[in-house]
């Protein structure tokens, strides 16, 4: 097994694939590592050999080229540590830690989902929209009837449409946004005709599938004895205030929720890359200059980690980084193409701004969350605990952590952190100068004890 490469790509989603595609064929030793079994990441998740109508032929060809290329790929591999000098530690099955070095590293770590907590959101049966996509696209399963899909942003509509496409059934689609808020961005959408077309297609499918669609409808509770049995909803006015007397209870045993995306910048932070908190790009993002190099020499970032804006922008950035690295190596990366790609990418960043603004929390979101609602799922820390800690004088994330244990569980703040940060900045409670990225230490993700102890042959 090699431990030294010219380029190491972390993540086999659109960004990683885009970079690999450009770099391939130049006699470089390239390694791609990814947590999943196959390439594609979340967006292009598929079961090899099974036709997936949701992946365009262009993307399918990209996947085929990369998987057939000479690029080394480690799957089910989690990166747990990294240094600015270009060393990464990776856990590969079955629980081996290996050290690998590369002259250039591309961080294409993608995103995870963000959620708006409500009472009962931890009940079994409440899942993320992404979880249902994984079941469908990765395991060939569909929800049996009475799944409710709820949330904000494009994903709930997309999911409902995909379920129907696979002959599943959707009990209801609940969109928190007001139809009018989409109008604000109509001009923007109009210049993204393909997105508009896509969105319309999904909407039509859902309408034709006779799925009840409710806008301005927010899930305010999940109830049941030991698992989900009922979803409680209320309607809101244009400003997001809950309308009294609008409560409805819908029987359901499966609820998929989604409220936008959060870039996975943890590895970048551990390696010392500068990150900035930019709400309109999804939260903490890796700071890069034009050629998408981070603040650390020879470490590049591509895809959602530089700003949430969808798969096309990720692919473009992967390609940009590929060309940039070829230039560095004197291998004639196409400079003109880079500037074309950058222009197109700017176009997609606008779309990202729209999506991120849709899924940003509102003042009303904060105020209506009850004290008993859990914020940190791992450690059972409630909003009430956090509010009290703030009253008691906590001025920092570490302070909140120590006082309440929020963020100290296994997920190390991945689920609760983005929610908390967004709520605090929106409410004005914390000045942006108080925003520091969550302190990251080895291991970036939990590792088996034995992996740390194992001596390498």
């Amino acid at each position, binding site marked *: 097994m090699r431990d030294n490469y010219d380029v190491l790509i972390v993540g086999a989603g659109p960004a990683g694939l885009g970079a690999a595609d450009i770099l391939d064929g130049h006699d470089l030793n390239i390694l791609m590592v990814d*947590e999943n*079994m196959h390439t594609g990441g*979340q967006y292009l998740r598929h*079961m090899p050999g*099974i036709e997936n109508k949701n992946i365009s032929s262009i993307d399918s060809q990209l996947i085929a080229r990369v998987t057939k290329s000479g690029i080394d790929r480690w799957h*089910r591999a989690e990166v747990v540590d990294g240094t600015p000098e270009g060393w990464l530690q990776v856990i590969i099955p079955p629980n081996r830690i290996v050290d690998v070095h590369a002259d250039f590293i591309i961080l294409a770590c993608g995103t*995870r*989902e963000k959620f708006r907590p409500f009472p009962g959101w*931890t*009940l*079994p*049966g*409440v*899942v*993320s929209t*992404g*979880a*249902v*996509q*994984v*079941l*469908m696209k*990765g*395991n*060939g*399963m*569909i*929800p*049996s009837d009475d*799944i409710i899909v709820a949330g904000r942003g494009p994903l709930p509509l997309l999911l409902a449409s995909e379920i129907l496409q*696979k*002959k599943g059934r959707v009990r209801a689609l609940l969109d928190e946004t007001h139809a009018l808020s989409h109008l604000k961005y109509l001009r923007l959408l109009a210049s993204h005709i393909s997105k508009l077309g896509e969105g319309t297609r999904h909407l039509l499918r859902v309408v034709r599938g006779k799925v009840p669609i409710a806008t301005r409808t927010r899930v305010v509770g999940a109830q049941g004895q*030991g*698992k989900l049995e009922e979803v409680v909803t209320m309607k809101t006015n244009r400003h997001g205030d809950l309308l009294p007397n609008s409560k409805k209870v819908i029987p359901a*045993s*499966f609820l998929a929720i989604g409220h936008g995306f959060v870039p996975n910048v943890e590895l970048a932070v551990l390696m010392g890359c500068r990150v900035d908190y930019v709400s309109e790009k999804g939260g903490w993002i890796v700071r890069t200059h034009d050629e998408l190099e981070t603040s650390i020499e020879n470490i590049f970032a591509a895809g959602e980690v530089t700003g949430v804006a969808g798969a096309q922008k990720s692919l473009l950035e992967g390609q940009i980084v590929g060309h940039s690295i070829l230039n560095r190596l004197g291998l004639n990366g196409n400079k003109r193409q880079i500037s074309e790609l950058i222009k197109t990418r700017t176009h997609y960043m606008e779309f990202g701004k729209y999506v991120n603004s849709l899924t940003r929390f509102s003042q009303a979101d904060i105020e209506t969350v009850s004290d008993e609602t859990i914020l940190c*799922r*791992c450690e*059972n820390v409630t909003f009430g605990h956090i509010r009290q800690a703030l009253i008691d004088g906590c001025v920092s994330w570490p302070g909140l952590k120590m006082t309440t244990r929020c963020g100290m*569980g*296994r*997920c190390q703040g*991945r*689920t609760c952190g983005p929610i908390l940060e967004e709520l605090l900045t929106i409410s004005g409670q914390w000045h942006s100068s108080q925003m520091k990225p969550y302190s990251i230490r080895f291991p970036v993700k*939990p590792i088996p004890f034995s992996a740390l102890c194992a001596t390498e042959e």
Partner: protein
Amino acid sequence: MNVMRIKSIPRDRALTIYVNDREIEAYEQETLHAALLAAGILVLRDNGNGMSPRGIFCGMGTCYECLVTVNGQPNLRACQTLVEDKMEIVIDAG
């Protein structure tokens, strides 16, 4: 039952896996959490105080909710575990 296998999709080899000594349907290349959901197993554990039932949440290895014991090894994420033949899973729903 919360999910069903799509009939038109061909499955790989059928495997034998046990959950609390009960055999459930599973196929090679499936992740454990999918097999559990397809068998109607939703509640996977309690989060510490006897009143916090938990199951699959994010489905992609980020939230650490779907923890089960596999072949004696506790606290593994079901969504990141591939099913294997004769796998023994213990779920303590608390």
